[in-house]
């Protein structure tokens, strides 16, 4: 009886506590559980991988209504890291990211469309600004998981992928015909606030 009551109150409580208000999450950059990586073909013979070390962001997500999800991320472009000092210097220069003039890249979502066959996957549309140029992009997103962490918090994580054409962002240094596009890979964990 007691457990039934508890269960009932838990259900009532959860229904009352969930009036279609999405939860807000802060991307866990402090604990370093979020990654923004990229890869681009080197001469067409191999992949070159890099990442942005410094960024911050938040998202909101409502399990009952995933279509309302929204995301905002700001990237410190000077934190580009390909594990090669001279290359990173070149990437920060105006041949590429032009970080002196445009120290930030940003993504602000406009809408999220969950897949009809799998609510854990979807397409996240939004405005991406890089090198001072803003374009709408569509990131293929998959929820990795969500739940309580062992330290009293609640976490939710996604991964996403999007291909960008460098010339779209006025980055036209010639790296060869096989290196006109860069693949962005995001692995983002948020801590519920």
């Amino acid at each position: 009886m007691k457990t039934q009551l508890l269960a009932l109150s838990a259900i009532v409580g959860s229904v009352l506590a969930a009036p279609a208000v999405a939860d807000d999450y802060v991307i866990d950059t402090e604990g370093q559980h979020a990654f923004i990586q990229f890869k681009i073909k080197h001469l067409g013979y191999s992949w070159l991988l890099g990442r942005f070390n410094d960024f911050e962001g938040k998202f909101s997500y409502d399990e009952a209504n995933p279509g309302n999800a929204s995301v905002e991320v700001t990237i410190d472009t000077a934190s580009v890291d390909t594990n090669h000092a001279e290359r990173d210097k070149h990437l920060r220069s105006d041949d590429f990211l032009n970080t002196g003039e445009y120290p930030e890249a940003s993504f602000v979502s406009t809408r999220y469309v969950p897949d009809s066959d799998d609510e854990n996957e979807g397409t996240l549309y939004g405005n991406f600004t890089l090198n001072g140029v803003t374009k709408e992009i569509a990131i293929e997103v998959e929820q990795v998981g969500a739940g309580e962490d062992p330290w009293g918090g609640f976490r939710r994580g996604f991964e996403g992928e999007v291909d960008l054409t460098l010339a779209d962002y006025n980055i036209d240094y010639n790296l060869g015909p096989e290196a006109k596009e860069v693949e962005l890979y995001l692995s983002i964990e948020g801590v519920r606030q």
Partner: protein
Amino acid sequence: MREVGVKGYDALMIIIHWSSALLVFGLFVLGWWMVDLTYYSNWYTTAPWWHKSLGLLVLFITLFRVVWRLVKGTPTIDGSAFEKKAAKLGHVLLYISLLAVVFSGYLISTGEGKPISFFDWFDVPALPFQVDQQATLAGAIHEYAAYVLVILALGHGVMALKHHFIDKRSTLIRMIKP
């Protein structure tokens, strides 16, 4: 700098002086040219290799040169009190900018903790610590310090020619004959 009562420089300092001059101007032109190389240029990887190895060579001989000067002293400077002061100041500025150029160059390539190869012979390690965006920061210093150095070195050469042809002094000769 301690002045000693000798007339000229010894042969070693003369060799170091002229090889430094050659290296400084050569590296300036090489650096100026190589930063605009396209990715598919044959020189895209070899030019920086030469620039870094030769730059390290300048670093080594300059450090040696400074120690040698401190140990051995330098010859007496000819001229008025003003000329002596100006010459000393010019020389100090030359040494400061020379060290600034080579050291900032070293800090570019070691900006993420990796060593620089000296002619594929041995590696010169990075400092045990790096600062944020070190390569970019050091690159800016390297560029401006190189302009300053080349301007100072040209001024240095012009003054040497002036002392030789107009003042008829031994200033230039004693940097040629030990």
